[in-house]
């Protein structure tokens, strides 16, 4: 038989579905192949979904999609052994009118999102692994799956297979990720009644909060923890750069158990029952790890293309936008009747002109900065900050001046002098600004 499609999308994550939806709406014959039992079956994220980019695909999507809580409050906590220095912002401005972002569960959101593409006419096949791309010269003409009679052909193949993109490697779009370009995240979903969640996090009914956690839990390694509120559960996670983790010999499981015992977190989690645990990679190499985005017959989108802005924990939105851009490029080619190499490159240009490229460019030095200064950023900064707060708030026999001198000494001591501190601040600032 060998039915021919206009486009095949590999992977039914946000990137792949955004592409499929865009193309199916344009009237193309689209096939999505997903290895999971259903879209989102094994997909893991924190997670926070941002309204803006999905709105461009489905107006008012957030009134229909299964989401957990709109977020009114976002926090950063810097932990030392026992203390927590906290900064954050809470405002109804984030949720009044059109909410800014939401907590969500992929096992619920992805199937919903996929159903929208299906309703638009895309065919979605699950429990099927694409094992390789079918090439004709340097042109991708289809995919091979792990099923009998499993070759399928198309004018365009969109590679949306996530962080560990085997297909991306096949087209030489990218090399193996280096261990300092990906972090391993373990995440636990902890069931807790909603009244308890709202009480413990000081939330009105239905509102959500997020906490990003830096410092002690990563035990000196480059890493970040998080704690998010869902409807009736909490998402607790800890991600560590793979190279650091390997060198430490510690297991993520052991680290997350340790994190749960931190005095600032213990009470928030008390009595919550483990519902599921999962582990997943996040590409954190940023722009410098971003591969070639398109070639003849193919395009690569989302995590597969390292499109994650980890400083702002944004990934799904970049994925959706890249998928949409890729889908639009295919539509344009179909309209012109020519699937030429240039047509595929249009996607790469569009990504270049989008916020994806600009945001990732802005932080391109960040991975290296964190890698080089991990002792400071992950260890000493949280420690000194905690110590500073402690000195600031403590009342004892010493004068305020003495307390504050101790703060300043502590800060200086952290870097070995004022000069080093300024250099670090400058490098940090540079890492945030191209």
């Amino acid at each position, binding site marked *: 038989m060998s039915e021919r499609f206009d486009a095949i999308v590999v992977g039914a994550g946000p990137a792949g579905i955004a592409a499929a939806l865009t193309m199916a709406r344009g009237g193309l014959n689209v096939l999505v192949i997903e290895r999971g039992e259903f879209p989102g079956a094994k997909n893991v994220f924190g997670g926070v979904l941002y309204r803006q980019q999905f709105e461009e695909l489905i107006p008012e999507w957030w009134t229909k999609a299964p989401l957990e809580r709109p977020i009114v409050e976002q926090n950063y906590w810097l932990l030392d052994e026992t203390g927590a220095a906290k900064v954050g912002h809470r405002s109804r401005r984030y949720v009044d009118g059109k909410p800014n972002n939401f907590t969500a569960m992929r096992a619920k959101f992805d199937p919903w999102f996929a159903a929208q593409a299906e309703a638009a006419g895309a065919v979605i*096949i699950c429990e099927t692994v694409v094992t390789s791309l079918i090439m004709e010269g340097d042109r991708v003409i289809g995919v091979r799956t792990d099923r*009998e*009679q*499993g070759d399928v052909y198309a004018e365009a193949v969109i590679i949306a297979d996530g962080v560990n993109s085997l297909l991306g490697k096949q087209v030489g779009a990218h090399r193996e990720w280096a261990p300092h370009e990906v972090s391993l995240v373990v995440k636990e979903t902890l069931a807790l*009644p909603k009244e308890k969640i709202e009480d413990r996090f000081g939330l009105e009914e239905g509102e959500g909060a997020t906490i990003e956690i830096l410092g002690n839990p990563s035990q000196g390694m480059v890493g970040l923890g998080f704690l998010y509120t869902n409807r009736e559960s909490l998402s607790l996670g800890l991600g560590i750069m793979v190279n650091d983790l390997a060198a430490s010999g510690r297991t993520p499981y052991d680290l997350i158990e340790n994190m749960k015992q931190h005095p600032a977190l213990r009470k928030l989690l008390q009595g919550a029952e483990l519902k599921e645990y999962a582990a997943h990679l996040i590409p954190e190499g940023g722009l410098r790890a971003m591969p070639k985005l398109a070639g003849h017959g193919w395009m690569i989108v989302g995590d597969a293309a390292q499109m994650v802005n980890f400083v702002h924990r944004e990934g799904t939105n970049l994925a959706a936008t890249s998928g949409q851009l890729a889908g639009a490029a295919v539509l344009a080619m179909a309209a012109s009747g020519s699937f030429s190499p240039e047509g595929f490159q249009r996607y790469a240009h569009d990504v270049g002109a989008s916020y994806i490229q600009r945001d990732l460019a802005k932080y391109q030095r960040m991975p290296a900065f964190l890698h080089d200064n991990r002792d400071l950023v992950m260890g000493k900064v949280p420690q000194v900050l905690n110590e500073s707060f402690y000195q600031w708030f403590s009342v004892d026999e010493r004068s305020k001046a003495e307390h504050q001198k101790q703060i300043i000494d502590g800060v200086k001591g952290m870097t070995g002098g004022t000069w080093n501190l300024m250099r670090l601040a400058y490098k940090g600032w540079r890492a945030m600004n191209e």
Partner: protein
Amino acid sequence: MHIVVCIKQVPDSREIRIDGRTGTLIREGVPSIMNPYDLHGLEAALQLREQHGGRVTVVTMGPPMAEKALKQAISLGADEAVLVTDRKFSGADTLATAYVLSEVIKKVAATWGPVDLVIAGKQTLDGDTGQVGPGIACRLDLEQLTYVEKIVAIEGGRIRVERHLEDGIEVVETALPVLLTALKEMNTVRRATFPNMLAAARYKPIVWTTADFPDIDPQQIGLKGSPTIVSKSWVPEVKKVNTTYVDGAGALWQALWTTDLPDRLGWAAREGAK
């Protein structure tokens, strides 16, 4: 040969958790799957079709979302799939379910030709009774062969099977048409081919509602036709145990001999025989 396979979509009970406080099921996030035994029943039907020719019709009574299980059946190679769905059918226990399914099978026979074999699963993960199969057989006045682990032969209008029992295997033969209930040991379920996956993704099951059964007795269907009711449910208490700590293997073995295990497990008898 015309084979009808009864399948049911069930929550994967292995993934179901109980809310400890309220004693209710947490169905959220629990995947719905085709009842595993039914899958083996379907595989058996497909293999018979390969050997003897004919067709395989799959039926289910359930909510619209059971369509997914029917599509799976199509992806494996079933010829046609029927979804029997109606508010009025809901709330059925095994008696009412078997009644409706027997009417459905009659209609299947009227539509696609006489039925030689009806296959049901050993039991479902949710109902977990194994009663629906025998119920259908009675209603249709078919011979019934339950707990089949192997179809030995079908020839000359007769079928020979091996039934799995607690104490051994029974080889039984009977005349077609027959209803059998399938065990997992019957076969290994195939993996759908890609073209079949595509066909299934586009397949729309045939939907029958009460309107398609003008002669059905409304008193015998759904909640009304169900003699049994669940009056209460609760979470079984975790038994409280006092742990006796013993010092090493020898002490443990001695301790076990102070229990009733040696009697109940026949250790004592074995020792006696020595």
